[in-house]
C-alpha cells in the first residue's frame, strides 16, 4: 500500500465529507457533533500519516482503518442530515480508497458494510421506501463494482509496481555483481601482470601468427627493445632473433614444446647474446595450438664465468703440468748430465759406450715425455681418413704376451687419424695389460651401433675402485707407480678430437671394460 497516495486520497475523502456536511440540511456548525466528527477525522489522517508503513500494511490494521472511514463518514452524514444529498458518492470514494489500500479480499467486506449502512440510512431517512426500490437498488451494485474494479486495478498496479521493483532490485544486484566481477578481473590481471613482471627470466607470448601479445621487463632488458616497439608486432619483424623465431616456429608447427635449448641472438645494440630458453605451447579449447610462451635467460654472465673457470682450470693444469714436466725431465736430465760428467775421466771405450747408452736412454725418455705433453696439450686440426680398426688393433696386440681374443662380425672402418687412434688404443690396451697378471685374457669386440663403430676392450684384471673411476680422465691423476697421469687424459682428448665418446666400466677384482665410440667411415665422407 502506498501510504502517501492513501493519505492524500483520505484528505480528498475528508474534504468531500466536509463538503457534504456543509451542504447538508443542517449545515456544518461549530461545536456540533458533525463538526467534532470532521475534526476527529482530520486528526485521524494526521495520525495515519505518522503511523509506520509496516503497521498499516497489516491486513487487520488496514481493514480497521477503512472500516473507521466508512463509520466516520456515515456518522458525519447522519449527524448533519446529509442523507438527503447524493452522499452515497462519497462511499464510492471511500471504497475506492479501501481498494487501493488493500487487497480485493479486504475491500469487498468494506463494500458490504458500506451497502448495509447506506441502506439503513436510506431507510431511516425515509421509512416508507422499500428496500427493493429501484433508485436505491441500482446504487448498491455500483458500490461492489467500484470495489471490484478498483481493487482489481489497484492489485494489478501493485503487481506491476512489485514486478518493476523486483526488476529494479534485480538490476541493481546484477550491476553490483558485474562490477564485482569486473573489479576481480582487473585485480587478477594486475596480479598476473605483477607475477610476470617480477620473474627474473624474459617472457614473451606470441599468438599463432607470431604476433607478440605479452612481453615482460626482463625480456625488454635482454632484447634491448621497449615493450611498445614489440608488443602487437610480428616477432619476425624484430631484427637479430631469427634463430629464436625458427625455434618458436618449429615448436608451433610440430606442436612439440622445446625444453632447455640455446641459441644466440643480437640485441638492439647488435651485441651477440647467448640465451637459454623453453618454448611452451598455448592451446585452445579443442587442443589446437593458439600460440606459445617463450621463457628465456641471458646466458652471457654464465658463459663469462664458464670461460673464467676454464681459464682458471687451464692455469691449474699448466701449473701442475709445469711441476710434472720439471720432475719428469730432471731424472733423465740427471742421467745425461751425470754420465757426461763421468765420461770426461773415462778412457775405457767399453765403459764409455755404456755411459753413452745411458745418455741416449735419457734423451729418448725426454722425447717421450715431450710427445705426451704435446698429445695432451696441443690443439691441432685433424685430417680424417679411413682407418681400419681391425688392422690397427691387430698390429698393437700382435706382440702382447697375454692371451687376446678379437671378434668382429663385420668391417670396422672409422673416420680418423691413424697415429692418434694408435696412441689411443695403445694407451687403453697397455692399461688393461698392466692390470692383469700372466693369466689375464684380453677380449676385443667391434660392433656397429647407429652411426658409431664401437670398440669394446674387456680385461679380467684387478679393476678400478669407484673413487678412482671418477678421476680417470683427470690429467696428472695416476694410480700407477711410474705413471705420468696423462695416458687417459690423452685418450679423452683424442676421442674428443674425433667427435667420439668413451665409457669405462669397472669392478674391483673382476676387470674393466672400455667402450670407444668412433664415427663410421662412409665412402661419401670427405676428409674435413
Amino acid at each position, binding site marked *: 500500500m502506498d501510504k502517501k497516495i492513501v493519505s492524500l486520497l483520505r484528505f480528498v475523502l475528508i474534504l468531500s465529507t466536509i463538503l457534504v456536511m456543509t451542504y447538508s440540511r443542517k449545515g456544518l456548525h461549530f461545536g456540533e457533533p458533525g463538526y467534532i466528527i470532521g475534526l476527529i477525522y482530520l486528526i485521524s489522517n494526521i495520525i495515519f500519516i505518522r503511523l509506520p508503513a509496516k503497521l498499516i500494511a497489516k491486513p487487520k490494521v488496514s481493514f480497521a482503518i477503512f472500516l473507521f472511514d466508512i463509520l466516520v463518514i456515515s456518522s458525519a452524514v447522519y449527524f448533519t442530515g446529509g442523507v438527503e444529498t447524493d452522499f452515497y458518492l462519497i462511499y464510492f470514494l471511500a471504497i475506492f480508497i479501501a481498494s487501493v489500500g488493500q487487497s480485493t479480499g479486504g475491500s469487498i467486506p468494506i463494500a458490504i458494510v458500506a451497502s448495509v449502512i447506506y441502506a439503513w440510512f436510506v431507510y431511516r431517512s425515509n421509512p416508507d421506501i422499500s428496500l427493493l426500490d429501484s433508485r436505491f437498488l441500482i446504487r448498491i451494485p455500483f458500490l461492489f463494482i467500484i470495489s471490484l474494479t478498483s481493487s482489481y486495478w489497484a492489485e494489478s498496479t501493485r503487481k506491476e509496481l512489485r514486478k518493476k521493483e523486483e526488476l529494479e532490485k534485480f538490476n541493481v544486484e546484477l550491476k553490483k555483481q558485474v562490477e564485482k566481477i569486473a573489479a576481480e578481473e582487473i585485480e587478477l590481471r594486475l596480479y598476473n601482470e605483477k607475477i610476470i613482471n617480477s620473474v627474473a627470466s624474459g617472457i614473451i607470448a606470441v599468438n599463432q601468427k607470431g604476433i607478440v601479445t605479452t612481453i615482460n621487463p626482463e625480456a625488454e632488458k635482454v632484447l634491448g627493445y621497449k615493450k611498445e616497439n614489440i608488443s602487437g608486432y610480428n616477432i619476425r619483424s624484430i631484427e637479430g632473433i631469427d634463430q629464436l623465431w625458427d625455434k618458436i616456429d618449429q615448436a608451433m608447427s610440430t606442436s612439440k614444446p622445446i625444453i632447455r635449448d640455446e641459441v644466440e641472438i643480437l640485441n638492439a645494440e647488435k651485441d651477440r647474446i647467448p640465451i637459454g630458453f623453453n618454448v611452451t605451447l598455448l592451446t585452445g579449447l579443442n587442443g589446437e595450438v593458439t600460440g606459445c610462451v617463450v621463457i628465456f635467460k641471458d646466458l652471457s654472465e654464465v658463459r663469462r664465468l664458464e670461460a673464467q673457470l676454464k681459464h682458471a682450470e687451464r692455469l691449474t693444469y699448466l701449473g701442475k703440468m709445469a711441476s710434472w714436466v720439471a720432475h719428469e725431465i730432471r731424472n733423465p736430465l740427471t742421467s745425461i*748430465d*751425470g754420465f757426461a760428467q*763421468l765420461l770426461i775421466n773415462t778412457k775405457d771405450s767399453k765403459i764409455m759406450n755404456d755411459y753413452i747408452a745411458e745418455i741416449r736412454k735419457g734423451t729418448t725418455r725426454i722425447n717421450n715425455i715431450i710427445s705426451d705433453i704435446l698429445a695432451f696439450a696441443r690443439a691441432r686440426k685433424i685430417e680424417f681418413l679411413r682407418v681400419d680398426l681391425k688392422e690397427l688393433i691387430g698390429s698393437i696386440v700382435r706382440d702382447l704376451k697375454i692371451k687376446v681374443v678379437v671378434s668382429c662380425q663385420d668391417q670396422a672402418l672409422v673416420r680418423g687419424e691413424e697415429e692418434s687412434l694408435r696412441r689411443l688404443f695403445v694407451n687403453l690396451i697397455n692399461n688393461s695389460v698392466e692390470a692383469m697378471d700372466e693369466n689375464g685374457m684380453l677380449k676385443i669386440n667391434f660392433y656397429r651401433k647407429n652411426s658409431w663403430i664401437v670398440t669394446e676392450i674387456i680385461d679380467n684384471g684387478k679393476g678400478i675402485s669407484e673413487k678412482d673411476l671418477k678421476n680417470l680422465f683427470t690429467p696428472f691423476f695416476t694410480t700407477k*707407480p711410474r705413471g705420468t697421469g696423462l695416458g687417459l687424459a690423452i685418450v679423452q682428448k683424442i676421442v674428443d678430437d674425433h667427435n667420439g665418446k668413451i665409457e669405462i666400466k669397472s669392478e674391483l677384482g673382476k676387470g674393466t671394460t672400455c667402450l670407444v665410440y668412433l664415427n663410421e667411415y662412409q665412402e661419401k665422407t670427405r676428409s674435413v
Partner: protein
Amino acid sequence: MKKKILICDDEESIRLLLSETLKEDYDVFQTDNAREAIKMITKDNFDLLIIDIKMPGTHGLEAIERIRERNKVIPIIVCSAYRLMEDDVVIKTSDVAAFITKPIDLKGLKTKIFELIGA
C-alpha cells in the same frame, strides 16, 4: 775396509750413475724402493744413505722418518728432482745431512760425502 753406502732410487739410471761415481771409494749397495731400504738399514750397518723422495710405494720422506726411529746416527742425503722451496717439500732438517737436487753435481756430492764420513 771401505765404508758402506746405500742408494735408494727407483730410477735405474740414477742408481747406476751414483754407484759408478762412488764405487771407487766406497762399497755401494742399491735398492729401488724405500721399504727395502728400511729393512737393509735395520739389518746391516751402513755408513750413509742416499735416498730419493718421489718413489712408488713408500714415499722417501716417510722412509726417512721410519729410519730415524730405528737409527738416529746414519747420515742421510736426500737426492731429489724436487726443490725444497719450489715444490713445497717439507722436511725436518735435523733428520738429513744434505739435500741435493737433480741434476747432480757429482764432484760436489763426492766432497759432501767425504765431509760426512770420510773415505
